[in-house]
C-alpha cells in the first residue's frame, strides 16, 4: 500500500488513536520515514495534544469545588 500525503492527513487522527488497521499503520510509517513534512505534521499535532491535555492549560476557578459542594449541600439538606 502506497500512500500520498493527503491519505496520511485524512487518517492522522485515527493513527494517533491507534485505530487504523496494521497494514495501513505500516504504510503510514513507511510514508513518514520518507516524508519530513508529514512527520512534522504528526509530531506537531501530537505535541499540541499533549500541551492541551496538561492540567495547566485549563485552570479550574479557585474555590469552584467548595462552592459546588456548598450548593449541593443546600439541595441535599432541603431534600431537593
Amino acid at each position: 500500500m502506497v500512500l500520498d500525503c493527503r491519505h496520511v492527513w485524512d487518517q492522522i487522527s485515527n493513527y494517533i488513536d491507534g485505530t487504523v488497521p496494521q497494514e495501513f499503520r505500516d504504510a503510514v510509517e513507511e510514508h513518514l520515514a520518507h516524508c519530513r513534512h508529514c512527520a512534522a505534521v504528526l509530531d506537531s499535532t501530537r505535541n499540541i495534544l499533549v500541551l492541551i491535555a496538561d492540567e495547566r492549560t485549563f485552570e479550574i476557578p479557585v474555590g469552584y469545588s467548595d462552592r459546588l459542594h456548598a450548593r449541593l449541600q443546600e439541595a441535599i439538606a432541603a431534600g431537593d
Partner: protein
Amino acid sequence: MSAQPERTSSQASLSSAERDARLIARILAGDRELFHELVRPYETAVYTAAYAILQNEHDAEDAAQEAMLKALKSLPNFRAEAKFSTWLISIVINEARGRLRHARVLKIESLDAAAVDEEGAPVPAVISDWREVPSQALERKELRELLRSAIAGLPEIYRETILLRDVQEFSIAEAAAALGVGEGVVKTRLLRARLMLQKILAPQLRSKRSGLFGLFRSKAGGSWF
C-alpha cells in the same frame, strides 16, 4: 485535569463502575450526603465540558452547578447501562447548550459544521520540521493563552469533542455517548478539530521560537525551542 473518567484499564473501569453503583444504591436508599463523594471524581470534567461550550468561567461554573443539581434530582432515573460519568457529562452538555440557546448567542454553526463533517479533513499547516514544545513551557501564561484561544476559536462541535477526548481523555465511545452522536461522527470531528488546531498553532508556536517563548529557559538551562 486532575479528575478524569478512566479510559483504558478495564480493571479500573470496572472498579470505578462498581464504586459508582454502590454509592448510587446507598444514595437512593436515603444516604444523600454520599452524592458529594459520588461526583467528586468528575467535578473537573463537568466544569471543563461546560467551559468548552460556554467559553466563560462564570457561566461554566454556573452551568456545572446546575447540572450537578439536576443529576442529584434525576439520579433515580439513571440507568446502569450507561456509565455514571458519561450520563453526568451529557447532563452538563445539555445544560450548557441550553444556556447558549437561551442567551441567543448560539452561532449558526452546528448545521454548517455537521454538513462539512461529511467532507474531507482540512489541510494541516505543512511544515518541514518540528521541535517539541515541552510541557514545562506551560509555565508561561502566554503559551496557555495561545492554546486556549485556539480551542476557543473552533466551532462548538469540534471544541466540545476535542475537550472530551483530548483534555478529559474520554474514550471514543464515551465521548459519543456524552455528545449523543455515533462513534464515526466523533472520529470525524476529532480529525477536523485536531488538524484545525495544528493548522492554527503549529506556525505560531514555530514563529515564537526566537521571540516571546524564546525567552523561556528550562530548569536545565536550555531553550525549549
